[in-house]
Every structure is written in structure tokens, then in C-alpha cells.
């Protein structure tokens, strides 16, 4: 494998792995705090799946890099500016409606991504994606159902999810960015074309928002930078909690 392609693949696996890990950690913060027991279990089940995807993707990233970094090393020994997740994933939970909107916007992207990545020319990514897509299909049904129920619900539930949509919309553009590294991977049949994902994402989101009787926010200024290590202030606090134990006790093992 050429060095350029290898570097591009490492970056790609890292971005996907980091996005899964950060969002999985965010969802795990609901453990013991969700509005009802069933949702507590649901959100943490989704968190487990996402952390599972992160483990597979980060292990693979470490393997491609070839410098001896395993999944734990990548997850626990990198600081904010080395993380490559979408800014959407690191946004705080706020209320349940806000969490559901964030999840739906992400799930709608993930289901389109993994569905296509399952046919990747890279057999490891294809294997991870074929496994992940079965799980994220289930996730998106859950987040879409809740968005419809809250949007087409009471005045309070509607106001909260409408507010969350406005608040989070500017973080959605980043999911469809494409840089030189992705050009290489798309040309090699390894990664799907982000433009194709955007079209499919738009269709899915529009259909659910309509059923939820919510207006689609207009596309304006889009936040970006997460994929290059420029993050919002929220990620630092998340990593401080997630990385506490291995930072404080570097030799600790289970």
C-alpha cells in the first residue's frame, strides 16, 4: 500500500472511530439519568454499540499506522487536538429532546455511510461496516420514532426539539466534507462519496422531520474543524472524564 493511501486510510478510520467513541461516551452519560428506565437502557445499549464500533475502528487505525498504538492507546492517550471526531458528536446532552435530535442527525448519516462502506474495497472496513450497519439501522429507527413523537407531541416537547434542531443544524455540514485524503479513498473504491451520503441523508431527514411536523432549518454557516482537530470547548471536559483513570494510573490493567 502506498504511503499516501496508508496515511489517508489511517485518518479515515480515526475519524470514524473517534466520532463513534465520543458520541458513545456522551450517550453513556445518560446512564441512571434518562427520563424512564426503558430509555436509560436504550441509550446505554446504543452507547455500547458505538463504543464497540470505535474499538474495531481504532484497532484498525492503529494497525494501519504501524507504530504499536492499540485501541486503548489511541482512546486514552491523545488530547483534544489529536481527536478527529465530528463536532456534532461532542455537543453536550442538554435535555432528552436535544440528545434525540443529535442522535437522529448522526444516525441518519451513519446508516447511509455504513450501508455503502460494507461494499468497500478495503476488506477490514467492509467487515466492520457490514456488522455496524445492522446495529445503526436499529438506532435510527429508535431516534426517528422519538423525534416524531416529541416533534408532533406537546407544546413543550415540540419547542425543545425545534430548539435543538436550530442549535445543532450548523454541525451537520461537517459530516459531508471531503478533503484530499478522501479523494484518494473514494477513487480507490474504499470510501463512499460524501456527496452521495448528503443526498441520501437529506432525503431521510426531510421525511422524518415532515412526519414530526418540524421545519427543516435552512442551511447557513456550517461549523467545521473537528475532522482536523479543532474542537469546541466541550470535548476537553469529556476527555478529562473519559481518560481520568488511565492518565492517573497509567499502568492500571483490568
Amino acid at each position, binding site marked *: 500500500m502506498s504511503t499516501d493511501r496508508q496515511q489517508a486510510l489511517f485518518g479515515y478510520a480515526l475519524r470514524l472511530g473517534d466520532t463513534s467513541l465520543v458520541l458513545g461516551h456522551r450517550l453513556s452519560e445518560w446512564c441512571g439519568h434518562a427520563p424512564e428506565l426503558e430509555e436509560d*437502557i436504550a441509550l446505554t445499549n*446504543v452507547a455500547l454499540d458505538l463504543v*464497540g464500533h470505535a474499538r474495531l475502528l481504532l484497532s484498525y487505525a492503529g494497525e494501519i499506522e504501524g507504530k504499536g498504538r492499540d485501541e486503548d492507546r489511541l482512546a486514552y492517550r491523545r488530547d483534544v487536538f489529536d481527536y478527529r471526531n465530528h463536532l456534532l458528536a461532542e455537543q453536550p446532552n442538554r435535555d432528552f429532546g436535544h440528545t434525540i435530535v443529535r442522535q437522529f442527525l448522526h444516525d441518519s448519516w451513519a446508516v447511509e455511510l455504513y450501508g455503502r462502506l460494507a461494499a468497500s474495497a478495503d476488506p477490514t472496513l467492509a467487515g466492520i461496516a457490514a456488522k455496524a450497519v*445492522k*446495529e445503526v439501522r436499529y438506532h435510527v*429507527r*429508535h431516534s426517528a420514532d422519538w423525534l416524531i413523537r416529541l416533534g408532533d407531541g406537546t407544546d413543550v416537547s415540540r419547542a425543545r426539539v425545534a430548539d435543538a434542531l436550530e442549535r445543532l443544524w450548523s454541525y451537520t455540514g461537517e459530516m459531508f466534507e471531503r478533503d484530499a485524503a478522501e479523494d484518494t479513498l473514494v477513487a480507490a473504491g474504499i470510501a463512499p462519496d460524501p456527496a452521495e451520503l448528503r443526498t441520501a441523508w437529506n432525503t431521510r431527514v426531510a421525511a422524518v422531520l415532515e412526519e414530526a411536523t418540524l421545519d427543516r432549518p435552512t442551511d447557513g454557516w456550517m461549523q467545521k474543524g473537528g475532522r482536523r482537530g479543532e474542537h469546541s470547548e466541550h470535548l476537553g471536559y469529556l476527555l478529562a472524564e473519559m481518560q481520568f483513570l488511565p492518565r492517573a494510573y497509567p499502568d492500571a490493567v483490568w
Partner: protein
Amino acid sequence: MPDAAGCWGPEPGADAAVTAAWDALATVMDPEIPVLSVVELGIVRSVARDASGRLAVTVTPTYSGCPATGVIVLEVETALARAGLDARVSVVIAPPWTTDWISDSGRARLAEVGIVPPPKSGKRALTAPDETVACPLCGSADTMQISRFGSTACKALHRCNACLEPFDVFKCH
């Protein structure tokens, strides 16, 4: 895939050690659903000999984030060692596990303990609408889903409107 009789096991003509390994694996119970062996659950992918002649056992996780995978690998290694077999155990994820790989005896055991087994039709998988399932306790068809996510990643929670009892349904995956 399980064979025509819905069972997992050694290929016809497999040597004694491979057969002994399958027998040992049949005693390892899934830690989260301990009425099912890992063989019945369909997560033992293969038992074969590698290039050096050593036994190689591959297992597959049900869900990517299944927290039991590590424990299962450990228990598989322990059971093989107890049977006096020298084997290497590895985890593979492709092709992805499906509930179609749960053996017929596994389905029967799930039903016995009141967990509705998944229908055999992986293609419908998780995209199909939620199905109406009969109550495993009283048989009534008047049931409802309470939550898509149950006590483990692989189950959903339902309730019978006739006898009012809640019950687990193994998700078609």
C-alpha cells in the same frame, strides 16, 4: 450455518480432537443468556487445524459492543484447556452474526425459559416493522412492545395485554 437438522458441529470425518473441541464448546454457556450454549447461539464460527496442526477456534460477537465477548473468549479457552486441548481462540467479525445461526435446539431452549425466539429470516432483520408476537406464557396474540431495547443488546421488551406479564423477545438480527 447450522446443518439441515438445525445443528452446529464437526464436519463429517473430522478428527477426534476437533470433535472433542465441539463437545467442550457445547458446555460453555452464554454469560448473559445462560440457558444457551455458545454453540447453540451460533457464535462459534469454526474449529479447524491451522498450518502447524494446532487447533484454531474462531468465535464471533453477536453485537459489536457486546460486553460479554471478552468473557466468552476466556470461558471458551478455559473449557478447551480443561478438555486437554491446545487451541488458539480468535475473534472474527465478518460475515456478521445473524440470529439465523441460532440452532433449533437453541430456539427451543429460549422458548422454554419464556424468551420468544427470533423468526428465521435474517433478510428481514431489523428493517422490518416490529412483529406481533404471541405471549410465551399464556399464548395470547394481544401483546405490545414496551421497549426496543431490553435487558441485553439482543433482546427487546414486550408485554402481554391478556395476562399482563412482561416478556423478552430475541430480536431478529
